[in-house]
């Protein structure tokens, strides 16, 4: 057996060369200490409890040395049967289930669900409600990307951006709390409108937030974008080509990093997205680094959209004027009997949707989020289905990591931006 030689980059007794770098030292290793392991595969189990799997994801890896031969994801550890629960709840009662799916961008899920049911019922929400929902969705896109950038950097070994980004994230938590009363489980939409209108001073607080956010993004940019380790860990890692990306059903930043400019906001605009001035960043190489660049740019574009939405925010009612779905005002409720009965019927019996179905896809922070509601004319859905972007993005993970190194699995998995609440549902 040939003697193996290992070259240590950092010498045991580091002496610096003329270029200021440590001088490499070659250390011969006796043959009997290093048995030939070639051809012996090893099974490695990552998770379900592991800080780098971003939830209760379990990956079973077959390794040859450090090379991943096979990667088999196991999911379902967080399965809560939301879709089944939905069949026992009336249309408005499902809203709290939606934000527990993607707890990193709860408002997007609230809005997407309400939109699909409104489409099924043929309800057109008010202009103010449309703009408020656009604000909610873009705010939570930033909310989710901030967490993604922070935790991904931490997985790869950079701790500082995490602290910077979570400070900003905390401000969005405060905005959530002011708007909905909750920080994560917002449940803010109702069929035909919102739980409540924007509280006084909220838009000013949001403006202040989006004025300050670019500075933090610039700081993170300085810390990461040209950092040698960051680029080394991300460039040409987890590569997936455009054709494969479409075939595997990738969406969102993961797809656009591969060079496909599919964005639901542009391709099937909803809520007047076609009238907002924003760009869809598209990558070239389909690697982790491009996914990072795309998400960073998406945050800046979301700030643009937020600014435009705040400028155009119209006055007027936030809820539709449709007594079938909207509760009467509290004053009316206390004052007259008819409103009381009306309130009772909407709460106890729910709202009947017409027979039919609706599959509505929107652009969430993770990718295309599809909400499929099927009604038989009752106050509860026959079937409520969520096409979760993380679920399908994760299914492409084996394709991206097989044949690569073990350490790339962590970087690739982090770059996909998954949330297990929605994968397991």
């Amino acid at each position: 057996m040939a003697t193996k030689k290992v070259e240590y980059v950092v010498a045991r007794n580091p002496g610096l060369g003329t270029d200021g770098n440590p001088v490499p030292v070659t250390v011969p290793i006796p043959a009997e200490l290093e048995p030939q392991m070639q051809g012996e595969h090893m099974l490695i189990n990552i998770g379900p409890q592991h800080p780098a799997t971003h939830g209760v994801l379990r990956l079973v890896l077959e390794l040859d040395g450090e090379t991943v031969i096979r990667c088999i994801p196991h999911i379902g550890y967080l399965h809560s049967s939301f879709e089944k629960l939905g069949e026992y709840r009336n249309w408005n009662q499902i809203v709290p289930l939606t934000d527990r799916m993607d707890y990193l961008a709860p408002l997007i899920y609230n809005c997407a669900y309400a939109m699909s049911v409104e489409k099924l019922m043929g309800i057109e929400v008010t202009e103010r409600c449309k703009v408020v929902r656009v604000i909610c969705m873009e705010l939570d896109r930033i909310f989710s990307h901030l967490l993604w950038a922070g935790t991904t950097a931490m997985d790869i070994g950079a701790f500082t951006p995490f602290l910077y980004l979570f400070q900003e994230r905390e401000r969005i938590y405060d905005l959530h709390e002011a708007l909905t009363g909750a920080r994560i489980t917002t449940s803010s939409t109702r069929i035909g409108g919102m739980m409540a209108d924007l509280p006084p001073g909220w838009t000013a607080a949001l403006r202040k937030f989006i004025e300050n956010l670019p500075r933090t993004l610039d700081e993170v940019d300085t810390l990461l974008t040209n950092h040698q380790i960051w680029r080394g860990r991300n460039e040409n890692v987890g590569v997936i080509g455009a054709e494969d990306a479409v075939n595997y059903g990738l969406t969102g930043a993961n797809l656009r990093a591969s060079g496909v400019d599919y964005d639901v906001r542009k391709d099937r605009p909803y809520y007047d997205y076609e009238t907002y001035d924003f760009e869809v960043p598209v990558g070239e190489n389909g690697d982790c680094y491009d996914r990072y660049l795309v998400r960073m740019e998406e945050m800046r574009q979301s700030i643009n959209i937020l600014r435009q939405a705040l400028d155009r925010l119209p006055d007027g009612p936030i809820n539709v004027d449709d007594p079938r779905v909207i509760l009467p005002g509290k004053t009316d409720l206390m004052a007259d009997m008819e409103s009381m009965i009306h309130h009772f019927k909407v709460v106890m019996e729910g709202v009947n949707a017409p027979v039919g179905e609706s599959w509505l896809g929107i652009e969430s922070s993770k990718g295309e989020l599809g909400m499929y509601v099927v009604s038989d004319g009752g106050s509860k859905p026959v079937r409520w289905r969520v096409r979760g972007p993380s679920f399908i993005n994760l299914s492409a993970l084996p394709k991206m990591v097989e044949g690569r190194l073990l350490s790339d699995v962590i970087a690739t998995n982090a770059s996909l931006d998954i949330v297990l609440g929605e994968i397991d549902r």
Partner: protein
Amino acid sequence: MDKPFEKAVQGLETGPEASTPEAAGQGGVESTGHPSVAALREKFGAAILKAVVFSGDEHCVYVDAERSAEILHWLRDDASQRYDYLQDLTAIDYGGGRPLEVVYQLWSNTHKRQLRLKVTLPLHALEIDSVYDLWRTSDWLEREVFDLFGIHFRGHPDLRRILMPENYAEGHPLRKDFPLRGRFSRAEQTRLALSMRVEDYYTPDELTIGGTPVAAGDGLAREGRVGGPSEAVKNTTDPMIGGDIPISQRAPVPGGEATQGR
């Protein structure tokens, strides 16, 4: 109201109410104006059962179950269609013994078009051709439908449960005859969960990786493998319960059977 809380607990034990017979799969209006629908009718004739529009602009084509894979293949590859992106694949159970529907939601990046395809499967023949080779998205989506509805996809290379554990024995949860709390009692469910073994956490395929463990702990040296479970594990007793029956031979917890303990 006699029983004011009846509504809240309705269906918890029996599964949700089946929708009214006439409402199942209805509600659309006749589809016109979608280029793919016309092309499909021309190309496949009798295999296109009907075409309807839901919620204003969602075109949906019902096709023959036997020819679904062929039709989907054509929709993906024909130059005038090019539905290269499978947005969603799922199923619907309307309950009451009525057939299940498998739903394909397609998007064409070339022509910027959306189309829904539905295949109706009677309960006694829940089998359909897999589209794994057309869109790899369907890998996990078909596994999910298999897991939650029990529909078998012919030709899927790795059709096993995905959300529920591999040893789940209560059936397919999203079927209407499946009660919300499951078919087994809580005690039985707990007992099953606690009695999971290594084989239940890994697929048989994965267990062959790495060959026979040479210096394995007791967890790995299990029945059917070299050595079987070690004597130490076999004869373990549980002092908390006080019995001297080894764990592996203990009878089920009284009242833990499927029919009791609700």
